[in-house]
């Protein structure tokens, strides 16, 4: 039985789905790739939160001009491909701003990581802004009216009454945005940022084993994202507990 499996595995060609003979030697590309991808996604989404909150509040403003700016930003970033946004930011502003080549942790090149993070954060803030807006609008309008009738200012009502309730709606969607970002960030490979997909591509081209590295990358993405989404579901259930009467 085991001999048969061993013989099958040994006979796999370079373009087979399951030819993982590049392991363990090339595992380091995947390990660094996972770290790079997680760092990139987490930092991008965290950086996106504050601008996104501002965008969402601007979007809910009564002032048409402020509302329009925010609306235009969200429309542009949600309606154009991420790869194009990434290229424009990398070859535009960051062709003028020359960042020094400094290796963080020995493999994260700052001069590419920072443009990547900024592009992803700008993109993400448009999506997160919509999450915030939906979360705020989902809080019953009566809450703000009650806050105002108790003598709170509009801003106090937002900060002390509406936003704390909105957080419950927002957090699960925000966590989902992070899961999406882990997958979406694979696009930075096009500019030589050394994420998980870049590692797979590099191993594939060096070893001539052209398919299995991508299969491994897919397995790794699944192993990151599936438990993460399950954890989010659990948190969501826990948060809903107070809703039941």
């Amino acid at each position, binding site marked *: 039985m085991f001999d048969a499996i061993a013989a099958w595995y040994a006979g796999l*060609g*370079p*373009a087979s789905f399951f030819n993982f*003979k*590049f392991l363990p*030697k*090339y595992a*380091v*590309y995947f390990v*660094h790739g996972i770290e790079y991808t997680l760092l990139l996604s987490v930092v991008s989404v965290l950086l996106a939160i504050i601008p996104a909150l501002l965008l969402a509040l601007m979007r809910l403003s009564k002032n048409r001009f402020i509302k329009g700016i925010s609306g235009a930003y969200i429309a542009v970033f949600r309606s154009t491909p991420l790869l194009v946004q990434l*290229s*424009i930011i990398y*070859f*535009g*502003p960051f*062709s*003028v701003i*020359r960042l020094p*080549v400094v290796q963080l942790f020995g*493999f994260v090149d700052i001069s590419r990581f920072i443009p990547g993070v900024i592009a992803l954060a700008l993109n993400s803030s448009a999506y997160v802004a919509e999450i915030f807006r939906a979360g705020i609008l989902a809080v019953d309008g009566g809450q703000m009216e009650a806050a105002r009738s108790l003598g709170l200012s509009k801003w106090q009502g937002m900060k002390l009454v509406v936003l704390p309730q909105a957080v419950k709606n927002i957090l699960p969607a925000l966590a989902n945005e992070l899961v999406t970002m882990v997958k979406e960030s694979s696009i930075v490979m*096009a*500019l*030589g940022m050394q994420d998980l997909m870049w590692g797979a*591509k*590099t191993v*594939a*081209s*060096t*070893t*001539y084993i*052209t*398919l299995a590295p991508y299969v491994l990358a897919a397995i790794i993405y699944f192993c990151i994202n599936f438990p993460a989404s399950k954890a989010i579901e659990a948190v969501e259930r826990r948060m809903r507990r107070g809703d039941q009467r």
Partner: protein
Amino acid sequence: MKNNKKILGLALSAALSLSLLAGCGGGSATTPAPAESKGAEPAQSQAAEPATPTKLVFGTSADYPPFEFHILKDGQDTIVGLDVSIAYEIAKDMGAELEIVDMNFDNLLTMVTQGNLDFVIADTESTPDREAAADASKPYYEDLAPMVLVKKANLDQYKSIDDFTGKSVGAQTGTNKALIVTGEDEETAPIHMTGANPVLLTTVGDLVNQLVYDKVDAVVLDGAVAVKYAQTNSDLAVVEGVELGSVGLPCVWVAEGDPKGLLPSINATIDRLLAEGAIDTFMEEADALSSEAIGLD
């Protein structure tokens, strides 16, 4: 090998300059200043004496063994290959430190045009289109002519270039091999297929996957690369007797007009390496490293 992604590059840079002008007024005001001083200074030194930079930024696309690829050297990720060895020699002759930038092939000429890279070596052959966008050195290597890779089982179907009519044929986007398949630039690729259905992808590995899983009938690759894939995968074979002819020789590329005055020194280095026979030695070393990486021992 890899051809005119230049058009996209130009379109992109045009879009960028527009967005810069329109978007950030402050940014565009500071933009021309460094560019001007950068252009003016070396132009003077070029007339008087060759440029002597202390650091050279070298761009390549390290997914193309044996020309440029990643290996693990003592557990450390390292970029090696024929082109990389030449880049080190160029830097050594100028007494400069070498910094390697690895990115998609499509973006390299854009980067060198913008001045973010000092020079590019990526098995990039000279073509009229590319000459219009950037300046080339002397050719440094006489490559094997492109070859057609097919499945060994179908090998006897292909005797001449006409046998590819009506077949799906893959090639790398933006390369001269793509022109052989599409036949859209007769000047660069006089020998080309007619009536083939072109399938253009960015990486060679993806093309080989398409071939192995019967998504394309044939793939046109650089001779050296095609031979290597035929060696490593027993299902694949190189078509004999279909001569595609040479489509330009690989050169070192610098920004148009050579604003940094690097070309005289680069050409001198290439002359020296050719005279010493060092290029062939580098190629053998690169081949050996690539074989070692494939062997996974």
